[in-house]
């Protein structure tokens, strides 16, 4: 049998290789899954992972998908690194969309506030407010932030549902549950003519690089890493755990809100019950694929965006159910966690012995 033996020091090589090994294992398991579904595995994998690069529009769509994943993944990487488990990014994303939607729908075009920054800031603030609930409950009362942030995801989805079916519904929308289309000023400028790729892509890159620098070069970054990795040491150093919990949750909530605001204003262009909040859960995998490093999360976002677009293509070309994407994501996270064991442990083949 195989035994895991602790290494004297974490392996640097494995820290770099483990995400790549995990992706490789996911591809192998994916091929088996496709074969089990009666597909030609090579063809299915090609559709999943290469077809998103087939033409310029599709490549732009990959980046469009990657923007919210990168924004949320970078925030969650910081959060998880600090051992704060915000798994409600989907809810903060939804609130961001609602906040941005309120600004876009109710600020008149002639107002001096009728500019893109306003809905984006409103969205980020709403996301932060939604994340402030688990932050306050954890720091004040010691309530588990995992459960609170997740419960608020359901509440956010129902709030959005109520708004678009009730008070904010477009009366001339033929009964569809959706708001009026947002005005042009609330749309982020398009980067490449003929695609949906907007300047939000720069925001995602800036957020990832900025947070990457913060984590490696600033005192705040050090505090978060110590609080997460060695809480006792952090207490001796006099770091306030409460301050770090607030920082981590507000940061990740704000970025999720911003992602939701960008999605609502610039990708969807109105509010409707389905605005892609599921990305908040995918972003958890993005953060882990980036080894809880914000810059790594940027690369992780690209990988998952490719598989998301590939999954949509597979639905059309191969008639595969859309849930295959969820299976893939779950498998990827399984393999990532298993491969991370290689960083701290050395696998060794030993003869089975009787205990």
């Amino acid at each position, binding site marked *: 049998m195989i035994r895991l033996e602790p290494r004297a020091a974490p392996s640097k090589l494995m820290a770099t290789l483990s995400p790549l090994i995990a992706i490789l294992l996911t591809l192998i398991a994916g091929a088996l899954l496709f074969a089990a579904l009666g597909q030609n595995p090579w063809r299915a994998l090609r559709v999943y992972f290469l077809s998103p690069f087939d033409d310029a529009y599709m490549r732009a769509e990959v980046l469009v998908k990657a923007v919210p994943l990168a924004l949320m993944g970078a925030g969650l990487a910081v959060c998880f690194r600090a051992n704060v488990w915000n798994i409600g990014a989907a809810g903060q994303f939804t609130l961001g969309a609602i906040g941005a939607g309120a600004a876009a729908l109710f600020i008149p075009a002639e107002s001096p506030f009728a500019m893109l920054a306003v809905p984006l800031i409103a969205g980020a603030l709403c996301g932060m407010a939604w994340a402030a609930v688990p932050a306050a409950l954890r720091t004040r009362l010691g309530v588990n932030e995992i459960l609170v942030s997740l419960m608020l995801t359901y509440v956010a989805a129902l709030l959005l549902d109520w708004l678009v079916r009730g008070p904010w519904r477009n009366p001339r929308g033929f009964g569809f549950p959706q708001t009026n289309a947002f005005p042009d000023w609330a749309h982020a400028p398009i980067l490449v003519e003929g695609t949906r790729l907007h300047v939000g892509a720069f925001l995602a890159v800036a957020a990832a690089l900025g947070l990457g620098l913060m984590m490696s070069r600033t005192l705040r970054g050090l505090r978060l890493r110590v609080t997460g990795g060695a809480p006792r040491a952090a207490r001796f150093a006099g770091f306030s755990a409460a301050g770090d919990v607030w920082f981590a949750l507000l940061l990740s909530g704000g970025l999720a809100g911003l992602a939701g605001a960008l999605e609502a204003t610039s990708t969807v262009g109105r509010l409707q019950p389905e605005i892609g909040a599921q990305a908040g859960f995918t972003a958890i995998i993005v953060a882990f694929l980036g080894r809880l490093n914000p810059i790594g999360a940027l690369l992780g976002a690209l990988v998952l965006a490719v598989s998301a677009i590939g999954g949509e293509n597979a639905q059309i070309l191969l008639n595969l159910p*859309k*849930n295959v994407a969820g299976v893939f994501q779950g498998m990827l996270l399984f393999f990532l966690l298993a491969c991370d064991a290689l960083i701290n*442990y050395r696998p060794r083949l030993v003869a089975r012995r009787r205990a």
Partner: protein
Amino acid sequence: MEAFFAAMIVAATPLLFAALGELVAERSGVLNLGVEGMMLVGAVCAFIVALSTGSTALGAFAGAAAGVAMAGLFALLALGFSANQAAAGLALTIFGGGLSGLLGASYVGVPLPKAQPLFPASWAEAIPYGKAIFGYDAMVYLAWASAAAIWWFLARARSGLKLRAAGDNAESGHALGLPVLRIRLLAVLFGGAMAGLGGAYLSLAYTPMWGEGMTAGRGWIALALVVFAGWRVGWAAAGAVLFAAVTQLQFYAQGWGWRAPSQFWAAAPYLATILALALLAGRRTAGSAPAALGRIFRPSS
């Protein structure tokens, strides 16, 4: 009122199954956040088996087995590879959501005959409020019987004591010769079986059909139930009933003339969960978490 009471007991059943299973796993020191995923896979497997065999019992069995298989995946990661338990549980929930959707894709909307009451109808009619006592299917009684059995096991049985030792101080338990990892493995697998049964109850009896994501956060509410029950069986059962009452509000509130948008009543269980967690937090009377909960343990020798 009798109808509301019966609806409440029925709605409490999936929560009770899942919360009891998670309670046992957590008392052994393992936090499995994958309850929602295990319930979903349990629900879809139970539905498929019940539909193709025509047997509710076989369906329930398949649900439990599917939960065990899912829990085995979690155990491989969290116990075998010493992975972070929170992350492994999230992976299980994401994987379970996808897998259940994939397995059930061709079964959406197919009706299934509802699970029949365990006792003959004449019993329920023989006494006042008989329906509230004898009107349920077998799984409801199974859930309550297992609550009693688990209470006895944790409080009185020798093996229950060992399980609690693994959850409170793994190192000392190991030093005393307890097979900590094996105890935790069994506790996690049991948790999977119970979560699978909880899911099976949803797709076989509560709403006898399969719908994607039909657990609607019940796995997470079950996790919350364990916390505010203070890891005690009786309180978890009481909590399940209380929460079931809140989930039933969306069907009864309009009839009682309580005016609010339907989305508000649908959100009520989630808001109530947060409220309950906040109100019960920090109370010393509320019981306390197993000391080694969520901590990775690797035997040194």
